[in-house]
């Protein structure tokens, strides 16, 4: 019995398991598309509504060639990223203001509850009239949908930071700003990151609904247009593109998480 060889064996087992997990993940993906294709060509499902992977593939090639997919998706992606960043940033700043003034936070508490429970997308028509039917109202929608919940979650994280850290800082005569910078904010990074993860999904909802309403450009527009002319190939293609971009954004947030939180 040799520890080194046992360790090698252990690592080999780990690698083996990882390979099998990866294998089944890919298998599910392939099966899904194959089944979809077969079901569609054998007319188990309605081709008009559910389309088929090959048709979507053909449309994809076509739309890439005439640059329209690139045009619409870059438009949507830009709005989503901006809405996402704005929503989280403004949420964090509002949370900081509430932490700064406990009195203000008591005053605003019921308003936050009301604003949080109200469906923000219902504000869409008002936003479009107020800001014009363009990018700015869609970005606002993407941000608005996540800002209140971010404020509430991050403010709760700020408040639950162990007060003994603040005691330590207080004995060093720290100002309230220094306490925020040295203890409150870094201690809340894990919560802010998980808010970011939730906000990735929320920002997509806000932006797609915004594009439904404005209906001039973007993937949301392609979906609504495809629906109106009964071109479900287009609808499903747009959905797939959204799924891919949303996943990439989520992965980027996880990368940020690994960079920010080194001490766990």
């Amino acid at each position: 019995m040799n520890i080194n060889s046992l360790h090698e064996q252990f690592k080999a087992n780990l690698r083996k398991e990882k390979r099998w997990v990866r294998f089944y993940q890919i298998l599910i993906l392939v099966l899904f598309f194959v089944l979809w294709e077969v079901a569609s060509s054998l007319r188990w499902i309605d081709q008009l509504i559910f389309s088929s992977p090959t048709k979507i593939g053909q449309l994809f090639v076509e739309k890439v060639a005439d640059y329209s997919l690139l045009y619409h998706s870059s438009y949507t992606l830009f709005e989503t990223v901006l809405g996402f960043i704005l929503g989280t940033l403004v949420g964090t700043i509002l949370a900081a203001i509430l932490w700064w003034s406990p009195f203000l936070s008591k005053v605003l508490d019921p308003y936050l509850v009301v604003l949080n429970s109200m469906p923000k997308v219902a504000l869409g028509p008002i936003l479009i009239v107020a800001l014009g039917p363009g990018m700015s109202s869609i970005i606002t929608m993407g941000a608005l949908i996540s800002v209140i919940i971010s404020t509430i979650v991050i403010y709760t994280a700020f408040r639950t930071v162990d007060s003994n850290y603040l005691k330590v800082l207080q004995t060093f005569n720290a100002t309230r700003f220094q306490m925020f910078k040295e203890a409150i904010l870094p201690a809340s990074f894990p919560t802010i990151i998980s808010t970011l993860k939730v906000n990735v999904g929320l920002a997509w909802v806000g932006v797609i609904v915004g594009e439904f309403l404005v209906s001039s450009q973007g993937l949301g527009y392609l979906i609504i247009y495809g629906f109106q002319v009964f071109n479900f190939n287009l609808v499903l293609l747009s959905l797939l593109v959204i799924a891919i971009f949303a996943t990439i954004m989520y992965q980027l947030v996880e990368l940020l998480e690994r960079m920010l939180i080194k001490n766990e």
Partner: protein
Amino acid sequence: MTFLTVSKVHHTYFSSKTATEALQDINLSIDKGEFVSFIGPSGCGKTTLLSILAGLFRPTAGKVLIDNQDIHENADLSIGYMLQQDYLFPWKTIEENVTLGLKLLSKEKEAANELASKLLSDVGLPPVEKKYPRELSGGMRQRVALARTLAVDPKILLLDEPFSALDYQSKLKLEDLVHKLMKEYGKTAVLVTHDIGEAIAMSDRIFLFSARPGRLHQTFEVPEEVRSLTPFEARANPSYSTLFQTIWKELESLEHQQSS
């Protein structure tokens, strides 16, 4: 020479339902370079008094003077405060933790880092500047917390049961270390503890508090022959046992009065 004076301090905690009197008419004074302990049953307000000395909040009534200045009016007075747990910031390196106080006082970074290395070796640690707190043991982390407290060169050290969360061996070692450093640096120190032995072994004087409301019950002088020893050696001295018995009986009688 009197360094710290507590005069006529009262403190009451208010909540919407109750008003709890934590401290009642506390008067005491501590000399420069003296090491004193606060002991007493739970609810005697010893930690409240320590927090008031640290300037964390103001007493309901009364004054605390250090060098004849009210501590709440002297903004640049530096006080060292050590808690039960180390409360090192987990996202900061050991070096950043030790120099935290200096950074807040906007001292030069290089000089601060140099001081940090010196302090870390003073508290008996190997060079761990670039490590994170999670990589150190509990005893080592409390040593780092001690270095962080000493870094700002405080006029007075307030120790709120800083050894109670440690294993027995680390506790004894750290007691010796703190005792030695306080004498070397000539610092005034106040220790809050519920361990009578620790109080006798480390201090020059012991203040015994009674509970509900917290009042100063009695003051004990630690005999010279115990004071001159390290805390570890002090525990073997015959005078240590005598004083231990006296304080033990006094504490017992206090608890009897309360339960009857």
